[in-house]
């Protein structure tokens, strides 16, 4: 089995991190809500876009561990380092 980058952490630490991320997401959502009321036009669209991308990154990074995929791939290609000259 491949190693899990979080395997050594305790359940408590990881739960706590999840909670912090959730709070960050909640704050951003509230910010979005008021951005929609206070601003309009291109500025509103940009701010909403930035906030949504931030939220998506938080979810993808902390909840979905997207980096795991990258961590695993080099393992597979055994002896990948050498390159045939072209």
């Amino acid at each position: 089995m491949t190693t899990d980058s979080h395997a050594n952490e305790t359940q408590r630490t990881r739960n706590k991190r999840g909670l912090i991320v959730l709070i960050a997401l909640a704050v951003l959502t509230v910010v979005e809500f008021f951005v929609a009321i206070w601003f309009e036009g291109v500025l509103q669209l940009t701010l909403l876009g930035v906030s949504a991308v931030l939220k998506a990154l938080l979810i993808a990074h902390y909840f979905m561990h997207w980096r795991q995929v990258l961590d695993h791939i080099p393992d597979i290609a055994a002896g990948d380092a050498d390159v045939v000259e072209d």
Partner: protein
Amino acid sequence: MAMTDLIHADLHERYGTKAYSSLTMHRLGLWLFIISDAFFFTALISSRYFVSGTDRPDALIQELGLALTAVLLLSSLSAYRSEVAASHGDTEGAKRWIMITIIAGFVFLGGVVFEWYEAFHDFPPGSGFGTTFFTLTGIHTTHVISGIILLAFVYRRAAKGEYGPGHYWGVEGAAKYWHFVDLAWVFIYPTLYLVGESVEMGAHG
């Protein structure tokens, strides 16, 4: 030939009889599916701006939109916790958090059904905004439903005690899919509820 045998021995040590790890393969497969689906949602969300610009009807229930977002974000935490619990061998915890996620999913569904019921009068599917509203929420809801079904299967297998440290792919996969459903909503929510200015729209506006 000796080098070949060395590589073989090395591989055997790392992956057993196969030359690859099935966990990596499953993770990669799920991520490819998520990337593919993300393209679908990109088309979906951008079509909203084509079809109905940035105007939104004032008949939209803003509180409900915010509440739906909150429920889905909370369920993302519970899905995360179920995965953490499963990875530490805490079967009871995993079961509990999966169940909470499923319940949150049903609450979300209830919200959408209520929203649709209201929307049918204010901006029916045949109107400009109604077209995008029902398409976006409808397709997102099919993802929520499939996520709930997936979680239900995982719950059943968790109850049988099939998951533990090092072999909890079922929980992890279902949780990742659920996070993706949440992630899609992160973009759909501002697109439908927040962008632009609230304007009065008739049933045919």
